[in-house]
């Protein structure tokens, strides 16, 4: 599988500045999707606003030949991996130029050329499929790691138990990344489980687990590197939980009337982007002007993507009947 990254504007994470740019790109992309939906120019989508550090930190720790599985809230993972914002946005708009010819829309965007495989919007779908990708990887002579992103809600599906248990029993090279964003659509996590950390559940399968501050991109990156190193060396699963927060609603638009105002406010103070900016400014290698530059570059990129997506054609009607059977 050859991996083609966007060359010009692709974020090459590995340092906080690059991570910041990647996070800003995701944020701008998601806010554009929300704005387009509000203007009735796009279908609704599930944004990852507030969770950028988890995507950027983990994906940054992966190598080009590693694989990624994701879910309905995938734009962050895809952009961090170097997906082209044009084609990503086009896909969400159901356009022929999208990564899946518009057939997926926002909910199940796979990009095989980037190693982003089998995206499923069935909560738990990614968990049921990752063991198969792990198995084929384990049976090949590749040293790849298979990372799977899923939510705290997915962890309450039975398939979570089946997946982690099988990965442990069969020694599959899987990095489980639970993005615990405190919400499961319109239900708070604490209505659905007696633990605060999904890693407490995972720790019982005989695999290493860790919960990391999911809003600290450097911490996420460090934890992910450790995890990836473990998997590459031992060819066994590792469980990493990024503890974070869904700052916008479940799916656009969402007035968040059901969200506790204090909780939301306290997490807004821990915005991963603001934190990365502060960290950079503290180093004095980075100025406010530099940040403004990055922000502007990102904004331009997203405007271009929107133009591309909006002006792209819809798939032709005969696409309705293709791609059913191999």
């Amino acid at each position, binding site marked *: 599988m050859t991996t083609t990254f966007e060359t010009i504007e692709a974020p090459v994470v590995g340092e906080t500045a690059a991570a910041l740019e990647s996070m800003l790109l995701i944020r701008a992309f998601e806010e554009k999707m929300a704005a387009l939906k509000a203007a009735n120019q796009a279908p609704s989508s599930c944004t990852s606003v507030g969770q950028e550090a988890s995507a950027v930190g983990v994906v940054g720790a992966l190598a080009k030949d590693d694989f990624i599985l994701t879910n309905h809230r995938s734009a962050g993972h895809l952009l961090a991996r170097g997906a082209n914002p044009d084609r990503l946005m086009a896909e969400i708009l159901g356009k022929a130029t999208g990564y899946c010819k*518009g057939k997926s829309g926002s909910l199940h965007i796979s990009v095989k050329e980037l190693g982003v495989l089998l995206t499923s919007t069935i909560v738990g779908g990614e968990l049921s499929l990752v063991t198969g990708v792990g198995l084929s990887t384990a049976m090949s002579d590749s040293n790849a790691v298979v990372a799977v992103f899923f939510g705290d809600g997915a962890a309450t599906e039975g398939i979570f138990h089946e997946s982690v248990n099988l990965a442990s029993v069969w020694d599959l090279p899987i990095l489980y990344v639970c993005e615990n964003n405190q919400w499961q659509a319109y239900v708070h996590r604490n209505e659905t489980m007696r633990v605060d950390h999904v890693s407490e559940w995972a720790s019982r399968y005989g695999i290493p687990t860790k919960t990391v501050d999911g809003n600290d991109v450097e911490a996420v990156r460090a934890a992910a590197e450790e995890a990836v190193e473990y998997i590459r060396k031992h060819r066994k699963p590792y469980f990493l939980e990024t503890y974070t927060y869904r700052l916008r609603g479940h799916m656009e638009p969402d007035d968040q009337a059901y969200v506790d105002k204090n909780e939301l406010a306290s997490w807004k103070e821990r915005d991963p982007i603001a934190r990365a900016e502060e960290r950079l400014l503290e180093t004095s290698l980075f100025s406010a002007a530099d940040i403004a530059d990055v922000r502007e570059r990102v904004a331009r990129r997203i405007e271009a993507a929107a133009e591309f997506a909006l002006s792209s054609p819809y798939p032709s009607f005969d*696409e*309705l009947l293709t791609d059913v059977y191999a």
Partner: protein
Amino acid sequence: MRTITVDEAITEGLAEEMRRDPRVITFGEGVATKGYKLAQEFGSKRVRNTPLAEGIIAGTAAGAAATGLRPVIDLLFAPFLTFAMDEIVNSAGKLRYLSGGQFSFPMVTITRTGAGWGVGAQHNHNIEAWFVHTPGVKVVMPSNAADFKGLLKSAIRDDNPVMFFTDISLIYVPGEVPDGDYVVPIGKAAVKREGSDVTLISYAKTVQTCLTAADALQEQGISAEVIDLRSLKPLDEATILASVQRTGRAVVVHEAGGPCGVGAEVAAILGEKAFGSLKAPVLRITGPDVPPPASYPLEASYVPQADAVVAAVKKQFA
């Protein structure tokens, strides 16, 4: 008569039944959040959010139904039923029989499906026929606010597991509903329009498609009767047969894919029991046998259109 949307009709029907019978409870992912008014009126014991786990939601409903409660569960979108098939099919559908009649399962499972929101095949998959092929359960799929309310109320009062399918595209469609307490019986089709030359048989969103087609046919001098099945299991054979024995022609229309769909069953029944009356082949106009796509125009092209129904009828007259 008042005019309310299908969504309101469902909530009203549920609320009325909860008022009427304290054994009725409702739960599902976000049910208490989205149904906060119900939660306010009936309390957090009877209106519950659940963990994100369709299997245990359905299993809990079946277990509770067998021991005195009457659960109404919301599994959101029909494809999520794939995580609850054991509980619905193997438990609720079979354990009455296998126990020699010791248990009954008065439970209603609500899901949504159909084109309209551009959400793709993992949210939109018309699988009602699976349950028609499943013993021990009943299946309804209404087309208008009055039937949504009346059939939901019947489903809640029924002592058997009832699958309640909601066509996504109808959710915000307004319609007149009768005042006061009324039910629509499960197993009774509705003749939406009388006609003498051909019978158009459908359910859910494509009932309207058939009515539109019937208008067009009228202009061409063909009088079409339109039947809304409403209940898919049990099917109202008598109403279908009476109509087709009179008209001699039938077209069955639905959005679900064709193979082993409800249209196949209706066509097979007509082919067997109305054979002598048929003046032309029974035709089926269905969604294609592909996973529904997300892209809006493609999704729209998935859905049977009135044109196609008109063309089918004209073929029958050719």
